[in-house]
C-alpha cells in the first residue's frame, strides 16, 4: 500500500480549481465519495489484476468518476536562477446529464490549473480553467495523453514525449517533457490504496525525473515589477529543469473523516525518487499514510502506513487567509530522512471567492541530515484553512 492519498490531494485540488469561478464541482464529488449522495451512474471500480498498458493508459478513462494528469517541477533560467511550476488537468464525470443525448451536455468536465513560483519576488502566479467536454474546446483523448481546454493542453507524442502548453492570465509557458525512466507503478502494480477500506483505491503511476525544456513568458498582467525575472528586462526566457508527472484515475474517494493531507514528490539528485503522503483527520491524527522510493539503481520500495512520518520544522501564516501552514517539514521513511525547505514561503493558492478552498502547493528543496541538498520537488499542504469539504 503506497500512495494512498494522492487521490484525495487531487480531489481537493479539483475543488480549488473550481472555486475561483464562483462555482464548484469538487465539493459534490467529495460528497459523493463520502457516500453522502447516491450516484445515479454506475462507475467502474478499481480492481487489481488488470495491468496498465501504455500508451493507452496515458489517455483518459472517461467511465471513471475522476482522473488527473499532474506535472510539477523545478525550472532553471539561463542564469541558473530557479522557478517552480505546476500544471494539472482534471477530468470529472459528475454523473449528471447522462440521460440527455446531446453532445453539449456536461457529462465530462475538464479542469486545469497552472502556477508559477517566482523566488525573487516571493510570489506565486496562478490561473485556472474549467469547461465541459463540448464544442470542440475541451477534450480528454483515450488513445494516449491528450487533454486540452481552450488554449491549454497536455499532449503526448508517439515517442512518449509530452508537452504542456499554458496560456494563463499573467504568464505563458510551453514545456516539453522527456521521461527518462519507465513509469513507477504506485501501490500494487499501479493500484493504490487510498484508505482503510480496500475499495478506496485508484489506478496510479508516476513518471519522476522527467527532463523539461521550454519557454516561460511573463505577461504584462503580471505587473511591471516582475520584468527583471527573465533577466535584462526580457519577459520570456528558455528554461530547462526536472519534473514529476502523476496520472491517476478512480471512482471512489477516501475516508470521510479526513480533513486534509500532506504530500511530497521529490526528484533525488542521485536519480532516485521519493513520494510520501499522509491523510490527516480533524484532530491532526494520521488516518492513512504511504509512499514509495525508487532508487537510482532502479529498485523500488513501497511503504506501509506506519513507515512514513512527517515532522513540522517551521510554520508560516498566510497574510490573506490567516491559515498556518507547516511549510518546512521533515519526512522520514525507512533509510531516508529529508528536510523539505520551501523555495518561497508564500506558495498559497487562495481561491476563497467561490467555495473557499485554500491550499499550499510549493516547490521545495530536500536536504539531508548534514544539510546537503539531496533533491528538489513539490510539497502539498491541504486542509489547513478549514476542512476542504465545504
Amino acid at each position, binding site marked *: 500500500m503506497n500512495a494512498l492519498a494522492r487521490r484525495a490531494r487531487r480531489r481537493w485540488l479539483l475543488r480549488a480549481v*473550481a472555486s475561483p*469561478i*464562483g*462555482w*464548484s*464541482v*469538487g*465539493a*459534490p464529488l467529495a*460528497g459523493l465519495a463520502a457516500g453522502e449522495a447516491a450516484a445515479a451512474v454506475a462507475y467502474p471500480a478499481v480492481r487489481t489484476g488488470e495491468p496498465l498498458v501504455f500508451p493507452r493508459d496515458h489517455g483518459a478513462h472517461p467511465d471513471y468518476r475522476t482522473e488527473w494528469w499532474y506535472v510539477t517541477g523545478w525550472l532553471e533560467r539561463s542564469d541558473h536562477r530557479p522557478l517552480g511550476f505546476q500544471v494539472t488537468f482534471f477530468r470529472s464525470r*459528475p454523473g*449528471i*446529464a447522462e*440521460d*440527455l443525448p*446531446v*453532445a*453539449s*451536455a*456536461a457529462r465530462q*468536465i475538464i479542469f486545469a490549473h497552472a502556477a508559477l513560483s517566482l523566488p525573487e519576488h516571493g510570489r506565486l502566479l496562478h490561473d485556472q480553467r*474549467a*469547461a*465541459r467536454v*463540448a*464544442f*470542440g*474546446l475541451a477534450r480528454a483523448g483515450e488513445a494516449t495523453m491528450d487533454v486540452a481546454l*481552450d*488554449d491549454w493542453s497536455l499532449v503526448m507524442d508517439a515517442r512518449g514525449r509530452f508537452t504542456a502548453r499554458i496560456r494563463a492570465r499573467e504568464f505563458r509557458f510551453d514545456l516539453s517533457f522527456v521521461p527518462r525512466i519507465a513509469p513507477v507503478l504506485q501501490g500494487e502494480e499501479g493500484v493504490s490504496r487510498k484508505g482503510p477500506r480496500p475499495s478506496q483505491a485508484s489506478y496510479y503511476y508516476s513518471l519522476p525525473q522527467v527532463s523539461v525544456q521550454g519557454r516561460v513568458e511573463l505577461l*504584462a*498582467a503580471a505587473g511591471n515589477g516582475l520584468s527583471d525575472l527573465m533577466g535584462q528586462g526580457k519577459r520570456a526566457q528558455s528554461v530547462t529543469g526536472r519534473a514529476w508527472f502523476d496520472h491517476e484515475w478512480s471512482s471512489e474517494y477516501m475516508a470521510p473523516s479526513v480533513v486534509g493531507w500532506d504530500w511530497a514528490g521529490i526528484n533525488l539528485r542521485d536519480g532516485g525518487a521519493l513520494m510520501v503522503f499522509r491523510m490527516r483527520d480533524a484532530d491532526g491524527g494520521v488516518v492513512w499514510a504511504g509512499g514509495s522510493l525508487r532508487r537510482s539503481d532502479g529498485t523500488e520500495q513501497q511503504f506501509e502506513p506506519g513507515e512514513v512520518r512527517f515532522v513540522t520544522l517551521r510554520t508560516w501564516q498566510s497574510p490573506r487567509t490567516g491559515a498556518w501552514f507547516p511549510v518546512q517539514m521533515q519526512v522520514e521513511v525507512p533509510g531516508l530522512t529529508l528536510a523539505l525547505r520551501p523555495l518561497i514561503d508564500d506558495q498559497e493558492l487562495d481561491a476563497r471567492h467561490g*467555495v473557499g478552498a485554500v491550499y499550499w502547493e510549493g516547490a521545495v528543496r530536500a536536504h539531508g541530515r548534514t544539510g546537503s541538498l539531496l533533491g528538489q520537488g513539490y510539497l502539498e499542504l491541504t486542509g489547513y484553512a478549514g476542512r476542504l469539504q465545504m
Partner: protein
Amino acid sequence: MVVRRQRNDGVRPVAVTDRSAWGWIGAGIRGVWGWLAAGMRLLRLACLDLVAWRGAKMRLAVAIGVLALGVGLGLAIERVNAVAVAEFEAGMSTLSGEADLSVRGPRSGFDDTLLARLVSRPGVAAASPVVEGSRNDLASGVAVSFQGVDALRAVAVQPALVPRAADADDRLANLRTDAIFVGPRLLERLERQVGDRIELLDVAGRMRSLEIVGLLSGVPALAGVAVVDIATAQVLEGMEGRLSRIDLRAQPGVSPAQLRTALAAVLPSGVQADTPDAHASTEAQVSRAYRANLSVLALVALFCGSLLVFSAQALQVARRRSQFAVLRALGLKRRELLAQQVLQSALIGAVGAALGLALAYGLAALALLVLGGDLGAGFFRGVAPEITFDLPSSLSYFGAGVGASIAGAFLPSLEAARTPPARGLRPGGLEQAWQPLGRIWPGLLLLILSGASLAVPPRDGLPVGGYLAIACLLLGTVALTPRFLKLFVFALVHVTRAWRSSAVIKLALAQLRGAPTGPAVSLAAIVAAVSLAVAMMLMVNSFRVSFEAWLLHILPAEAYLGEGGLRLSVAEQQRIAALRSVGRVEFMRIDEVRLNAGRPPVTVLARDIDPVDPGARLPLVARASEDVAVEGAPLFGDSPVAKAWVSESVAEIEQLSPGQLVDIPLGGHPVRFRIDGIWRDYGRQQGAIVIARSAYVAATGDSVVSNAALWLAPGARFADLRAGLRWLGSRAPLRETGEIRRFSLAIFDRTFAVTWALVAVAVTIGLAALAGNLAALVLARRRELSVLRHLGLRLGDVSWMIALQALVIVTAALATGLCAGSLIGLILVEVVNRQSFHWSMEMHAPWGSLLALTGTMCLLAMVTGYLGGRGVARAEVVRAASEDW
C-alpha cells in the same frame, strides 16, 4: 408704495400704484438689490392683478387645467418611454453581462463549432455560448423565456446568469440538465416555489421536467426570465449543435471595435458581432419611431393647452384695455405694465405646470400599470420598469408649460401696453388690439413652409419633415383662422341676403361681420384641437381598416398551428397532411436573419407559396413586371434564382425594388434571391421576407416547420380537426382564424389606446375652448345686447341670435379644423407613418366619429350660446346700458 383697490359697479378691481414709489425705484439703486426689489414689486403687483381674474374663474381654471393636461401628458409619455427603454436596454446588456461583443445570427441559430473558432482568435479573452428560447409551462401555460448557458464559461462573461442554487450543497445545479433557475417575477407568474418542478414540452413534443433549483435574484432585468443549462436549452428548442449567441470578452488592450474587425473574417454570413449596448439600442430602435410619434402627439397636447391659455389671456387683456389705460394714465410705465402681465401669466403657467407634473407622474404610473412600459405596443415584453423622478425632463416640461403661458400672454399684453392711454380708455377699441393678428402673410408663409417641409427626408428613421409640416400647417391654420372666419361670415351674409331671412339672422351676422377678429382669436384653440382630433381619428381609423383588410388577406386558412415556438418534423407534417379532416395544409418556417450589422434582424417566412400567384397569399403592393417574372427563366446565370417577396420595411430600409437581386444569409451562406414583389406587412415592423419553403430547405437542409395553415376538408367540422390533432397535445394549440383576428385587433386597439386618450384630450380642449369662447363672445357683446333689448328685441330673439352666432363660429372652426385635420391626417398616414414604420395604408375617414364630433360641437355651441345669451340679456339690460361709456 400705496395700493388702493377700488370697486365700482361694473368695473373690475384695479390695482393702482403710487407714482412716487415707482419713481423711487426708477431713480433707483442700480445693481442686484434694486432689480430684486423691482422684481418683488412686480410680483406683488402681478399677484394683486390676479384679482382681475375674479370674474373669469372658470376660464382661468380651464386654462390652467388644459395646461396641466398638456404638461402632464407630455411628461408622462416621456417618462414611461424613458424608463421602459432604460430598463429594456439594461435587460439586454445584463444578459450579455460584461461582454465586449455579442455574436448573433439568425433565430435558428448558427453552428456551435463557431465557438471554438472564436475562442482561438487572438484578442478573445473569454467566450460564452448561449441558446435562447421560450417554452410554455404545461401546468399554467405561462411562457418561460430562458437563456441556456454553459455556467463554466458564462462566469467569465455574464456572472449574473450563473446563480447559486438554493441548496448550497447542490453545486452542480448550474450544469444539471434537469435544473432551472427562475427569476422572481416569473416564479410568481408560474405560481411555484424553489424546489418545485415545472414541465416544459420540447419542440419535439417530449415533456421535460425541470426542478426549480434557485432564484435569479439580484438583477432586476432578469426577474422575468429563467436560466437553464445550454444542453437543456438545445433540446427544448431543437437546436442541438447550434447556438443563438456567443458573448465575448476582449483581452486587455483590445477594443471591441478592433475585436469586431478581427472576427469579421471568421463569422459566417448572417452572423454578426455587436457590442451589447449597440445591440440593445438596435432592439430599442425598433420602437423608437413609435415612441417619437407618441412624444410628438404629447407635445401637440401641450401646444393646444398653450393656445387655450393664449386665448384666455388675450380675452382677459382685451377686456381690461380700459383698466390698463387708466393704469398707464396714472403713471405705470409701458414696460412695467408688460412685465406685470407677463409675470402674471408666468404665475398662471407655473400653477398649471406644477399641477401637470403631479398629473404626469400619476398618469405615468397608471399607464405602466394598465398598458405596460411600451404603452401597449408590445415592444418591451417582460420589462417591468418603475417610474422614477427625473429632474431634467420634469424641469423642461415645467418650463415648456410656463413658456406656453407666457407666450400666450405676451402678444396681447404687448399690444395693451403699447396702446396710448387715450385710445385705450375709449370703449370699443377692442378690435384694434387684434389688428396684427389679422395679417395674412404669416399664415400663408407657414402653409407654404408646411408644404415645403414635406420634402425634408427622414433623419435616423424619424420623419422630421412630416413633423415640421404638421407643426407649420397647424400654426398656419391657426394664424389664418381670423381671416377665414371673416371670409366665412362675408360669404354667409351674401348668401343670406338672397334669402328672406329673419332679422335675428341678419343681426347675428352683421354683428359677427362687424368685429370678427376677437372671437376668431379664441377660435384658434378650437381649430387646433379639432384639427388634431380629426387627424388622429383619420390616421387610426385608416390604419385600423387597412389592418383588418390585411388580416383577412394574410390569414386565408380556417385554422392555424404555430404558437409557443412549435417545431414539426417531416413525419409530423405528413401526419397532419394525411388527416381526413384536413382539406389543405400549408406549412411555414419562421426564422430571423441579419441582413446588416446594426439593424434589427429581419423575419424570414419560408412558406408553401405559389410562385406564380403570390398575391393569393400576400397583400402585394408592387410586383416585378411579367417578363422578368417568368418562372425558371435563366436570367441570372445558368441556374434559376428563387423568388423572394419583401415587406415594405425591408424594401425601404434596404433600398430594394422588384426585379432586384438580394443575398439572404441562410445556413451560414449568402443565398441569392430575386425580389418578385413587395408586400404590406403590419405584423413585423423590422421587416419580413417571404421565400418558398423549398428554397429554405435547399439552403439550410432544415425541413422542420414552425407553423401550419389548415383548411377543413369538405364536410369536415372543426371538432374533427381538433380531434385529429389531439396527439399534438398542448404543444400547439389550434387557433381558429376568427380567434386570431379578434386577438390581433385587440392588440391593435391596445397599441392605440394612448392615441385615443390624446384624441379625447384634444376634443376636451376643443370643447373647453368653445365654451370659453362663447362666454367671451357674450360678455363682449353685453352692451350691444342690452341696447338691442332696449330697442325691443325679445329675450328669446337675443338668445337665438347668440346661439346662431355660436353656430356660425363653431361651423367655421369645424370647417377649418376638418380641412386642416384631414391634411394633417394625410401627412400622418402618407409621410409620418411611412417614414417611421415603412408601411402604407389606405385612407379611411371615420365618418361616424367625425359626425359625432361635429354634431356634439355644434349642439354644444348652440346650447351654450342660447343659455349664455339668455342669462346675459336678462341680467344686464339695466346695468350694462347704464355702464359709463
